[in-house]
């Protein structure tokens, strides 16, 4: 018995108007998808041209000497040792301050604070703070930390400044992570007789951990590229020494003197070299940019990995 088959379905017994509506909706889908793809292609190719140019020009400049030398007046001897060590230490301080405070604030606002006009007010302000231009934070820090508290132009102050800058990001992402936990999970936890503290530690934080960590790392990867606020508080642009080492030979073997040292960071080093007339310095700047981008990407990579790992773990 031969069956004839046809791929296109006719309207059958449905109304012709319904049939037409589906067809026209499909046409719109197609146009929308094509338009989206086009815009995406332009944006991506622009991005890749920029980064590609930077990488091609910068990468061959990066070698062991470049990473282990101080900046110099002579381009061929200039390196980024003080800059990447500075970036690393400033990030350390930033993370140490912003992550615990931001997570605690987010958890408090979401779980403990009484919901009312006051918590709404705080919520709006925290979200607004996330959008304040970073140089304003620099000014604030200059007035408060450098002059007001007399802390000087140090690694500690830089870390505090960037911590303030990313605090809203950490708070908002913590709140969002907590808010996305299904109510039924919380009710289950309260249902077994857990009190608020136990529910928070044993159920909410584990479930929200991927989101919280991602927020923290996204915040840090924003901080690592910040230049303006650090220039505002007076980061040095030329540093030919390292901060005091955190580990010492004598008791108690750990030192925090580095907190009070002057510093420079990668983006400032880059900025400094770009503004030099010699073209060799421009290439050094590109190389510094490559290091900076690599750092940012790996931070984001870690964030994605954590999210993936924890999600999987959580599901199982």
């Amino acid at each position, binding site marked *: 018995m031969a069956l004839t088959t046809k791929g296109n379905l006719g309207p059958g017994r449905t109304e012709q108007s319904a049939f037409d509506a589906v067809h026209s909706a499909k046409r719109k889908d197609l146009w929308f998808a094509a338009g989206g793809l086009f815009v995406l292609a332009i944006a991506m190719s622009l991005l890749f041209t920029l980064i590609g140019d930077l990488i091609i020009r910068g990468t061959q400049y990066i070698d062991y000497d470049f990473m282990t030398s101080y900046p110099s007046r002579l381009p061929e001897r200039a390196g980024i040792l003080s800059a990447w060590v500075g970036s690393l230490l400033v990030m350390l301080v930033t993370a140490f301050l912003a992550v615990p405070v931001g997570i605690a604030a987010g958890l408090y606002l979401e779980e403990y604070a*009484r*919901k009312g006009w006051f918590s709404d007010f705080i919520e709006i302000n925290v979200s607004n703070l996330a959008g304040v231009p970073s140089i304003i934070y620099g000014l604030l820090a200059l007035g408060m930390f450098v002059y007001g508290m007399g802390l000087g132009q140090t690694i500690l102050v830089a870390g505090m400044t960037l911590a303030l800058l990313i605090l809203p990001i950490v708070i908002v992402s913590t709140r969002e992570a907590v808010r996305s936990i299904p109510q*039924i*999970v*919380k*009710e*289950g*936890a*309260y*249902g*077994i*007789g*857990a*009190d608020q503290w*136990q529910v928070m530690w*044993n*159920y909410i934080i*584990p*479930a929200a951990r991927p989101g919280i960590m991602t927020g923290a790392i996204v915040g840090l990867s924003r901080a690592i590229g910040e230049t303006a606020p650090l220039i505002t508080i007076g980061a040095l642009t030329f540093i030919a020494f390292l901060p005091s080492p955190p580990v010492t030979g004598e008791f108690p073997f750990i030192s925090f003197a580095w907190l009070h040292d002057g510093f420079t960071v990668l983006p400032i080093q880059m900025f400094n070299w770009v503004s030099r007339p010699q073209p060799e310095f421009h290439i050094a700047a590109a190389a510094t940019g490559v290091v900076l981008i690599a750092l940012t990407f790996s931070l984001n990579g870690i964030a994605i990995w954590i999210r993936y790992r924890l999600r999987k773990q*959580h*599901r*199982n």
Partner: protein
Amino acid sequence: MDTDMKVERTAHRRIVPESDMPPPIKPSPEHETLRARLEDFSFYYSNGFQAIKHVDMPILDRKVTAIIGPSGCGKSTLLRSINRMHDLYPGNRYEGRIILEPEGENLIGKGADPVIVRLRVGMVFQKPNPFPKSIYENVAAGLRVRGVKDRHVIDEAVETALRRAAVWDETKDKLKGSASDLSGGQQQRLCIARALAPNPEILLLDEPTSALDPIATAKIEDLIQELSDSVTIVIVTHNMQQAARISHRTAFMYIGELIEFGDTNQIFTNPRHPRTESYITGRYG
């Protein structure tokens, strides 16, 4: 309707004396003791909506009490009041008394700590909600919350609870495995085990089988009947056959009011209130 309601209420009041003093527990001819009672209980949601209106109802010790009624009549609201679940959301308000016997303590009285209430009254939800942890840790969770640290004590309680919840055979070889790998019916029995592990005085079940297939449902119904020898159960169900099969007492609710309460047989064979009758005969629901 109002006159009928009054008849019903006075009928309960005979079981529940008017005085504030906890009454001595008098075993009835069938050796029924009171485990808890609701007295003039009302509940208001934070938007001011009164979801429960002046309910008087006894909860008998080691019996299954079923709450039935059309969707939206306040069954879940009533059930969730008994372990103070509504306290998780600001603005909700209880009125009246929910007395736990034999101590005569008012669960919703001034100073009654909702966390302590939930330590004493366990709950199983409509949708299975195991924690994203191992099977073992799910059942142990209630004990850990209560500060139990001794491994042997926990091991034993986990096994006992899983056996009581009739899910031991299916899980004993994978206690360290993830709870989310179980089927829906197994997950729900795991949730029952989780609630049973700390030996609650009352176990509340809110439509525990509505998300399950008929076979899993039958298993849970059997389980509830067995458990009623050892624990007081209050179950909300929209399935009248289920209520008729597994409960000793049935409460019929309608728009926030308790219309009729009585022996399950009596409710289903000889309802006193016309509204109960039309509901169980399927005229609305």
